[in-house]
């Protein structure tokens, strides 16, 4: 187990963080970092409790949670709980616990939990809620919007509340086992591997760029560069964009400049017919 006794999240703290994340999970949703702002905001009381008078560690944690985050808000609560248990473990034992595994776990889980979450909430729950309430609305009942929201939030609230709770306790159990067996360093190795695989998958899923350059012919029969690329390496352009962005970030380029370049390239590219 850890050197120092880990600080335990009590139910008061959990309730506080639950509401902070319910309210602001989608706040300041930027195209670059998506749900990052709200995730870090929700965690702030916990981080302050872990580092009441260690400003350096607090900064380190806040900067760590500035990383890109995007997930179905309902299932994101599970990741939030998990990250909180890991932050607690790191605060208790900074020598043996590598904080890189926190970022790695986030990277690893956001993709699959979005897949599951979107399927459950955007497709299934919303369709059920909409189909019931559309019938009510067509019959002129003012209950329609109320029923719609009630059905949606019934499912949503259960998943959010228990997701946070289970994420935290599961994280603690897992970390305890890892410490007892003495292989906590493997956690970082494993989490980094899963994280990188999932980031690769997310680049292929989320980043998009197609070229409109025509190689030969015109109209319906035109042979485009994109169709040629599709037969060799379909997502070559998104891969190049991702790697260029990585190079920019590693060279310490300001994120705002990278975005501006993308806007200019996008508009100019469409203007001269490349995209």
């Amino acid at each position, binding site marked *: 187990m850890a050197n120092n006794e880990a600080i335990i999240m009590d139910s008061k703290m959990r309730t506080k963080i639950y509401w902070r994340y319910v309210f*602001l999970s*989608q706040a300041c949703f930027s195209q670059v970092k998506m749900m990052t702002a709200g995730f*870090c905001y929700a965690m702030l009381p916990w981080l302050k409790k872990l580092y009441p008078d260690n400003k350096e560690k607090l900064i380190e944690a806040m900067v760590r949670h500035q990383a890109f985050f995007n997930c179905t808000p309902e299932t994101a609560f599970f990741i939030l709980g998990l990250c909180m248990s890991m932050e607690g473990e790191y605060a208790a034992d900074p020598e043996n616990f590598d904080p890189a595994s926190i970022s790695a776990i986030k990277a690893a889980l956001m993709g699959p939990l979005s897949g599951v979450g979107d399927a459950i909430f955007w497709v299934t729950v919303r369709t059920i809620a909409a189909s019931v309430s559309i019938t009510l609305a067509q019959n002129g009942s003012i209950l329609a919007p109320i029923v*719609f929201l009630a059905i949606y939030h019934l499912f949503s609230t259960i998943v959010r509340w228990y997701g946070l709770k289970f994420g935290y306790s599961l994280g603690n159990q897992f970390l305890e086992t890892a410490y007892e067996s003495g292989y906590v360093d493997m956690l970082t190795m494993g989490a980094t591997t899963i994280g990188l*695989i999932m980031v690769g*998958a997310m680049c292929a899923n989320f980043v998009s*760029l197609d070229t409109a350059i025509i190689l030969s012919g015109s109209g319906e029969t035109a042979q485009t560069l994109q169709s040629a690329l599709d037969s060799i390496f379909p997502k070559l352009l998104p891969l190049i964009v991702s790697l260029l962005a990585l190079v*920019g970030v590693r060279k310490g380029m300001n994120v705002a400049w990278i975005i501006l370049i993308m806007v200019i390239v*996008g508009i100019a590219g*469409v203007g001269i017919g490349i995209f």
Partner: protein
Amino acid sequence: MSATSLALTTAIVYYIIQTLYSFYGHSHLNRPIVVCPVLGIVLGDVQTGLALGASLELLFMGITNIGGSIPSDCFLAATLVTSLCIGTGMDVDTAIVLAAAIGVVAAIWSLTVRIVYQGALVPIFERYAAQGNTAGYSRLIIIGNLVNGLFSTVLVFAAIALGADALQSAMAAIPAFILDGMSVAAGMMPAVGLALLMNMLWSGKASIYFFFGFAATVYLNINMTFMVVIAVFITLMQVYNELDLRNRLKAVGGSNGEEDDLFG
């Protein structure tokens, strides 16, 4: 009701719903089935609001903003169309056709706000994080969220004040390459956030896993849930190999097992 007061009422209702929505993330308050009846109550014609809510919810049912994309902004579209229908007596069928068109253009507007305004906030959040300024961070997220709704509210006000005809001709006047260019740019943008994430995990040899994840998705069409299953298996193989290596080193090294890390 005069065009200005109609525009003002609609804009206020829009701003309130938008702000409630962004202060209760993913609450679906901005779906047509909710927006249209609420606007109907305020403008004094609940039945038209309900009818539009049902039709527009059906129209936009298949459109989901999965993965942070905005294919169509049904909230803005539903607000404008409901207001025009009740306020100016526009035909419901015309309104539904108009809503589909507005939705696409409105999505570009929402995207621009996300790119320009929210993008400008990102470095400020980063600065507060680097200073450990929790109070500043919390203040910024709330003010940022309150201001966010204003951009589209101005658009709603202008659109209703100008009327349906002006709206259609204004939509036609925007050069297509700018709209398309913004969509292209938006498609590239998640790369920046993902690059920041990659930067934290990236190290010489481990980078092959990134390319594995990318290639497996592209060539095998694996969805993300299945991908994580494969990733777990790869990781377990790696961990078992490492454990095996350590056990063997322990067996060979005997008493000075402590120094085995040097050879591992």
